[in-house]
């Protein structure tokens, strides 16, 4: 089999995995099953990033979303309800609202895709990936994104201190 053939086979496997598990996330009633499917979805998206030659983004996707945020969601679910019968109630109003939001995001994505200038720039000839890490690092630390980066880091620091303050509030009151 040709290199491109293997590559597209793996691509479609990842695409199928992502879409199928994403459908499961919204249809499954059990919240932990939904979280588990979401993990597969996020993992599949990371795989798709690799096909777009965005290796750094793929690894960060897994570290931040799969390794961080989703674990916190699961942790929260387990803390609040240890039982297996935790089920999600879906009402018609939520369905309509959710569908509307999904449609808007789809339109937005189509807009972004059609406006992306370097669409032809992505090569698919099996050549080695150029590491994106160096470019991203230089853009953040030396380039135009230094200020946004610092602002975001201060925002996160504030959020961290706030979280620590809220979670220890009762002890502080008694002192």
């Amino acid at each position: 089999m040709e290199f491109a053939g293997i590559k597209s086979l793996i691509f479609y496997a990842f695409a199928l995995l992502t879409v199928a598990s994403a459908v499961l996330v919204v249809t499954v009633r059990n919240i932990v099953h939904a979280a588990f499917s979401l993990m597969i979805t996020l993992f599949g998206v990371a795989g798709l990033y690799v096909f777009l030659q965005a290796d750094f983004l793929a690894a960060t996707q897994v570290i931040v979303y799969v390794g961080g945020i989703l674990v916190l969601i699961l942790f929260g679910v387990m803390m609040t309800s240890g039982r297996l019968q935790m089920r999600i109630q879906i009402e018609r109003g939520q369905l309509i609202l959710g569908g509307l939001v999904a449609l808007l995001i789809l339109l937005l994505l189509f807009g972004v895709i059609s406006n992306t200038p370097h669409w032809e720039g992505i090569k698919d000839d099996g050549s080695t990936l150029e590491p994106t890490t160096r470019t991203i690092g230089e853009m953040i630390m030396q380039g135009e994104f230094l200020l946004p980066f610092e602002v975001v880091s201060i925002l996160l620091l504030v959020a961290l201190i706030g979280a620590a303050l809220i979670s220890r509030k009762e002890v502080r009151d008694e002192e």
Partner: protein
Amino acid sequence: MELPLHVLIISSLIKILIVVHVLLIGVMAMILAERKVSGWIQDRHGPNRVGPWGILQPIADGIKFFLKEDLIPDHVDKPIYVLAPAILLVPALIICAVVPFGSSITVAGYEIPLQIADINIGILYVLAITSLGVYGVVLGAWASNNKYSLLGGLRSSAQMISYELTLGLAIIGVLMLSGSLSLREIAIAQGANIWNWNFLIHLPAFLAFTTAAFAETNRLPFDLAEAEQELVAGYHTEYSSMKFAMYFMAEYMNMIVGSAVAVTLFLGGWHLFGLENLGGPFWSGVISIAIFSAKTALFLFVFIWVRWTLPRFRYDQLMNLGWKFLLPVALTSIVVTAIVWIGTQSKLLVGVCNVVAASVVVAIVASTLAMRREPEQIERQEPSFMKGSSSGRT
């Protein structure tokens, strides 16, 4: 070095086969080594009935696991209960894809790198896959529908999330001096000279990394997730036969992979005083594999040694160690390494300043903690599962 496609595929398949089998055999060797070393440390014989010196003991264990009834309790959440051990085992297996277990070997005229995939974000890949391991524990604990399992899973996930931070931050100093995220580049940057190895330049970060790696594998002194006296067996209480064996294998595999990553990052990879360059293009590859294996084995011995030497931490001690000592030390290491390296370009000074800064930080934290009057209220505020062993706070 560009290999033709068919050579690349065939050599990769052979390497994958070898690595996976070496890992599985390594697990068996580790089980025997654990029992033998624990016997030695506790001044007893250890297994000595199955085969000469008990070397067939792991095979006997394996057969026992296979022959036991594969029990799935009625009250569990079946799909996730069945999947959970695999979710823990698979990350342990796929991390080795990026670990360089030797320099390169020349077979039939092709120079084949001794690494399954040299991706240029290697270390990020390792961190990303490591963070998946927690799902096997959490989902297994939840799916068991047993309060001991759930408490073990909660403890374990909190512990793994806390120590993952240290694991990631401790590496950054190494990355700054190597100038690459690829594990192969990091190993090459250290070279044959032992003074260039990262464990000397980044001694505090190395100790923090090792401690965090211990915590990530859920072994003593960090095995609160399966503390027998409190939680029966923690997250795998409801598992039996091969499913339990998979949890067991995953623990040992994580140890082996963690040691291999630590050797690559901090102990110079396959380098040892230029010994790896002896012989021709074929034998130097074999020697480099042997050196790498020997270093990994040494690291694994430390794992066993620590387990049978130190008692288990209490939960608050665990969290204090992670957040108040290891994390500040790792953060200090980043700042000090960056400043000293840019200022002096001297690895010796980086090493010295790292140790001095880490000692200062530890002293400050320790004295602050000692001076602070422990508020008694915290004890009552904590939910019951957050407490460690029953001995009270002093």
